[in-house]
């Protein structure tokens, strides 16, 4: 840049300052047409030269709006951060910045920047050293690292939310919460049954809103991380899939914790049947049922499972 600087004529410097001024006046970007009208007395070639110089200095950026090109001033702090870095670093930084809090995989950086792997590695290392970017491990694939800007909070899809610690799914934690929520609802059902004879009030008393359950879990203090009401609802949903709980949604006054004037209510329910007849003899769970044949190696008369069950 400094080499060029010597040759820069006064006119060109003048042109550049005018372009920058124009861009400062229109922070949303300047079209080619507008530029032509505002900066009179210059040829297209001169303007293009001036713009190119500004672009190479990283003071302007080009955007596309429909078929038109827009020129905009680059926000100063970004260009400040990578100041003193070479072009490659700038490009890589740009790519990582675009990826936002979802992060970007090293392979994709390579494809987008068209740089060699070794080069990219070097650049990433230096950027990491400057604390401009950070590497985050993704939960979906444990070996996959994604890069994002240093100050960003990783997305839920990367960290997995409250249920993950260091990319591991905390299945025990979920299990404990699942049990505690069910215990709470079951106690509620029991007290409701004892309190009243009227079936409607019994049913209503056995309901608990997700907010109540959330409070209960927080007061229990089993969780080190703070759980949101949505997290508790996810847990309660697993109880529904277990067939132990049912859910209804009722309209309510808009309060915090309820979405759009709706409160989700949960209650414990009794299953419709006890374990079914088939499962009360060993054949129900027998893993070698297919091979079981009278007169065969496995048969009802020499069945070990049957013998143990009958001797019990």
């Amino acid at each position, binding site marked *: 840049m400094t080499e060029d600087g010597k040759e820069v004529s006064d006119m060109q410097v003048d042109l550049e300052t005018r372009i920058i001024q124009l861009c400062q006046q229109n922070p949303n970007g300047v079209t080619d047409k507008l530029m032509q009208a505002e900066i009179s007395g210059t040829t297209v070639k001169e303007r293009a030269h001036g713009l190119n110089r500004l672009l190479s200095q990283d003071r302007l950026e080009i955007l596309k709006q429909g078929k038109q090109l827009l020129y905009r001033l680059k926000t100063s702090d970004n260009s400040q951060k990578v100041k003193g870095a070479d072009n490659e670093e700038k490009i890589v930084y740009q790519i990582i910045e675009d990826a936002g809090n979802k992060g970007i995989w090293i392979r994709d950086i390579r494809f987008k920047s068209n740089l060699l792997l070794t080069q990219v590695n070097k650049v990433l290392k230096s950027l990491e050293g400057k604390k401009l970017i950070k590497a985050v491990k993704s939960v979906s694939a444990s070996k996959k690292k994604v890069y994002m800007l240093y100050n960003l909070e990783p997305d839920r899809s990367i960290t997995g939310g409250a*249920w993950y610690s260091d990319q591991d*799914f905390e*299945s025990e934690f*979920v299990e404990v919460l*699942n049990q505690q929520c069910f215990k709470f609802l079951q106690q509620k059902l029991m007290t409701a049954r004892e309190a009243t004879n*009227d*079936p*409607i009030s019994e*049913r209503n008393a056995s309901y608990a809103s997700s907010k109540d359950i959330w409070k209960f879990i927080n007061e229990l203090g089993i969780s080190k991380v703070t759980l949101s009401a949505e997290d508790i609802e*996810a*847990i309660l*949903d*697993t109880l*529904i*899939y*277990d*067939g132990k709980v*049912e859910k209804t949604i009722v309209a309510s006054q808009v309060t915090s914790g309820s979405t759009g004037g709706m409160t989700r209510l949960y209650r414990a*329910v*009794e*299953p*419709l*049947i*006890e*374990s*079914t*007849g*088939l*499962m*009360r*003899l060993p*054949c*129900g*769970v027998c893993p070698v*049922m297919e091979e*079981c044949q*009278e007169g065969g190696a496995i*048969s*009802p*008369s020499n*069945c070990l499972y*049957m013998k143990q*069950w*009958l001797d019990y």
Partner: protein
Amino acid sequence: MSKAKNNLCSVLLKEHFGEVVQKIGTLLMKKGSMPLRLLIIDSKLPLQKVKKALCVLIQHNLVEFKVGSRGFPEYTLLTDNALLLLRYPRYIYNAKTLYGDTGELIIEELLTNGQMTMSAVVGKVTLRLSEATESGVSVNQVKDVFVKLVETQFVQRCSVLQSFDAEKPVAPTMNVYEKEMYLIPEIKLHLIRKSEGSDEPPAKKRRVETQEDKQPDEDIYWRVNFDRFHHYLRDQALITAASRRLGPKAADILRTILRLAETRSDPWAPTTCCVSQQEVFEAVVKETNIVKPEIPPYLSVLTEDSASLLSKVEDRGGGVYTVTTYKALQQLVEAIIMSVVEDRFGSKCCRIFRLLLMKKYLEQKQIEDLAMIPAKDTKEYTYKLFQEKFLNAHEVPRTMDHAPSRTFFLFYVNISQVCRMVVERCYKAAHNAISRQEWETRENKRLLEKQQRVEAIIATLRENSADQTQIDEVEEMITPPERAQLSHTKSVVNKLERSQLQLDETMFILTLFINFRK
């Protein structure tokens, strides 16, 4: 007809009617319809035995006959009816709860004999009851119970001979007249009473052959109406479910509504006919000790429950209700299948299964997120269920070449397929239980026979009023280890019999659902 079903039918026929009938039955199952000639050739049994076996099977409504394409009568085994042999104890038990000992004995007689005339049933039951109890029961009482059973359609007339061409004796046509199905014929009670008094009733009947002494219902035969019993058993299953879910009072109300609807609607329609709130009020107050103000809350709880046993179809007159039998049955079937999945694969698998049942189509990743099970375990569970055919996968390719890497695999549950699969397993399990029971008795045959002999000796000794010491001596012929073995065998046989009944309960609900879907 699957192999498991045929095997089960075969062992059931053996258990109830012996080996000859089993042989004929198995042959008919294997070959479909067959004329008599071929049956004799294939079974290598003498004509008399085959004929007799067929008679037994026809008597019990297990074989039907019609003229085949060649002009010979052909016999076909009704396997579905043969499977009901497993359910006989339940019919008898339910008759007992409904109509007491008399009802129990009537149904028992009809089941063991296949079909009987009314006079014969009444005579036999009266005789058995007066033997069992000191006071005895009058013929009239027994007849009343029989009439009640007919009125409630638990017992119906058999088809009657319509035409029989004596010139070309091929096969008679049998017919049932719907009007006469539940018509009570005249019977002469005094004849039964008379034969009851004498010591040799059959001999007496043979002697007097005058028109006066003949029973007028000689060619009207009765049999148990299985369909009606199934209807009753289904209602019982719904009531039990309601009781578990919402308590005994809700169950009482549901029972009343089912009973009110039962007489007027087609029993196998997806919903019963409508019952108005007023009717429910009157009937419930009359039959149970629930007071009127208690009823509306229960009705609303029953309709709003997620098991959807009852539904309100109209608002007029305070509400008109129907029992949504099909939906309720589906809930029961789902509960049964859940229980199967849970007991076989664990509660985590059950969670995945129910999740798919609720959400219909899901991808592997979605299952992981919603079920909140670690990805690795979810894969294991899902593939296990898939392998055991409880789940199906639907492929949605993104490109034309169906490459697995560019294809979505959506898992889903096909409930009727799973249902059939579980029924098959039930058939096999029932077959296994019966074979095991047979094997246990065979293994201990000597011991069981010895016990019988000893008991017979003791009985005769008691009759001859022998001393206690003599009886004790005979009793000691069975050594303590033998006694322990005997009690063990007895408990084993009991356990196996109980499990057969429980298996049948599962099968009953599942087959009912399959038939509903047809």
